[in-house]
């Protein structure tokens, strides 16, 4: 229960810069996710907040207390690792009680707290088992209980679900969110999984090469990517390189006219594009509609192409379409995906100008 403030923290490993002058404010009780590919510095950042890694430069504050030089054991944090890291020689109860026991709590107080924690993570009666007798998901729940038992100021998660299978990940991510909401603790969560980040975060920090690309809510990042990197990283985006040919509209209705591979497209874009500028127009696979016959007049953008490949994935089908020498990915759901197989090679695609985003090329 405290705010976390990072002031231009930097970490060098020899010549490599892992984290580069990163600044971030996390509000009290907020759930912030650091999202990025492996090697982008998100884990290093988290470990610096924990104190497990010493920053080369910059300061870290919990509330207004400068904790940069305080060792992890005195920061009162809860760190959940990629592996549950339960002490294998201690019972579940002793694992959960470990933090309190090193702080000198009485045995009865510890036992009481352990029961509360076990109930909280939905595992009452498991206290006497050894970690090896639990499943992976149960182990990670105990790891959660173990960090919550000490009533930490900040919860830190380092890809806690990456070692689990998909179904378990889906249920456990909501358990984590629910526990964080119930305890009202400030949380920083590291992941490379977009759907995980989108499902549980108040705000998402997209990181790349040791720097922050964009901070924002899910919709901010999804609909208003501020850099080409974010536009390409969030969603499996199709990029259509082209040049600006003009503008129409004002304010929210402002559109950029883009000439891309022989097609005239209308896209959303920030102001400041001049005619002739190189841009990339991004369209998400799920935003593209397949048009039947001559329909689709209500779409601002219509492309024609040939189907290259159909990949049936169950709930959705993935389509690879050749459009003017470029391959587009189209995700199809609903009944349409079942009739795809009968179509011949030619196909027409339509999408609204609100879904096409122009970014500097």
């Amino acid at each position, binding site marked *: 229960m405290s705010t976390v403030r990072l002031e231009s923290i930097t970490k060098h490993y020899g010549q490599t810069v892992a984290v580069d002058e990163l600044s971030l404010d996390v509000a009290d009780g907020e759930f912030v996710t650091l999202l990025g590919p492996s090697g982008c510095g998100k884990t290093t950042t988290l470990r610096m907040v*924990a104190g*497990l890694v010493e920053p080369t430069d910059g300061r870290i504050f919990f509330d207004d207390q400068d904790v940069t030089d305080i*060792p*992890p*054991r*005195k920061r*009162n*944090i*809860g*760190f959940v*690792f*990629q*592996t549950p*890291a339960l*002490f*294998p*020689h201690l019972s579940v109860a002793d694992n959960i009680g*470990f*933090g309190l026991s*090193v*702080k000198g709590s009485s045995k009865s107080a510890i036992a009481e707290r352990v029961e509360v924690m076990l109930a909280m993570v939905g595992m009452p009666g498991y206290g006497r088992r*050894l970690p*090896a*007798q639990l499943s992976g998901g149960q182990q990670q729940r105990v790891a959660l209980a*173990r*960090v919550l038992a*000490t009533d930490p100021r900040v919860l830190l998660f380092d890809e806690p679900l990456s070692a689990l299978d998909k179904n378990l990940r889906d249920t456990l991510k909501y358990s984590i969110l629910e526990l964080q909401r119930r305890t009202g603790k400030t949380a920083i969560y590291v992941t490379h999984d977009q759907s995980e980040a989108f499902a549980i975060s108040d705000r998402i920090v997209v990181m790349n090469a040791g720097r922050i690309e964009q901070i924002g809510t899910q919709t901010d990042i999804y609909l208003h990517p501020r850099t080409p990197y974010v536009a390409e990283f969030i969603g499996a985006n199709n990029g259509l390189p082209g040049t600006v040919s003009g503008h129409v509209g004002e304010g929210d209705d402002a559109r950029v006219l883009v000439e891309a591979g022989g097609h005239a497209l209308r896209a959303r874009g920030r102001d400041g594009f001049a005619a002739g500028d190189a841009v990339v127009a991004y369209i998400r696979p799920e935003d593209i509609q397949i048009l039947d016959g001559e329909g689709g007049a209500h779409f601002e953008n219509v492309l024609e192409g040939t189907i290259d490949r159909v990949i049936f994935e169950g709930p959705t089908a993935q389509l690879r379409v050749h459009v003017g020498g470029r391959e587009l990915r189209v995700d199809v759901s609903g009944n349409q995906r079942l009739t795809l197989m009968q179509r011949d090679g030619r196909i027409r695609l339509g999408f609204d100008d609100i879904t096409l985003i122009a970014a500097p090329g």
Partner: protein
Amino acid sequence: MTASTASSGPSAVRAPAPRSMVGRRRLTSRRMVDIVSHGYIWLCLFVFVTPFLALLVYSFTGPGGTYAIENFQYVLGSFGENLWWSLRISGLSIAIDLAIALPAAYAIVRYPVPGKRLIFSVLSLPLYVPGAVIGLSLVITYNFTYHLTTSMWGLVFAMVVGTFPLMLTPIIVALKDLPIAFEEAAECLGAGRWTTFWRIVFPLIGPGVSAGLMLAFIIVFNEYLVTLFVHPSEITTAPLRIFNLVRTAGLLPTTAALAVTMQLISLASVLLFFRVFGTRYFKGTYLI
């Protein structure tokens, strides 16, 4: 299916289902392999254990070829002092070994010590150097510098030098296998280095520690050559006593009884250490 047939050898022969000729032949060749492999194990046991059995039988030989338990009363009486010295020297040596090896191994594995490979190689030197060379080196060192030749501590120190790598190596191996996440988790939960080491690290490297203790104990307890060089005149360890007796009085049944007793103590230490330290942490942990 095939695996279960193989493991349940004899019962498979009595299986009620009729088997084809091919099945029978395969079963027979499998039984042949079974018999040969069992035979081989028994042969090994016979070859390696016979000398000890001969010693055991001889240790019960009384005057004129009779049976005598008196030989072992000698062990507790006249030889008791020698055994006691051996045990004391061993106990002190492994205690000092452990006290040095634990922090040393932790530093070598967990901290960026410059030239740690070289340090480790140098520390392992006593493993490759013949006992006589170690003994001679120590006599020279003691005489010219510490004047330890006349004290028990000189002998203990010699044993520590000789067995330190045996203690260090298994602890280093165990620590390298221990993921650092356990220590980091403990630290984040508020535990200091000392608490983390004794409550988390030490129990988890238990198998390595026990292996080191056992190896060092057995070597020190049975060490004869280095002892011969550096022992003070008032201290005669059991192996030294055996050697002296065989040299001066020939092979007596009483000496054999002392040798058997030493063997039993060594064997007991192996069993004890595996029981107390080894299996406890092998089970139910990631160490399997």
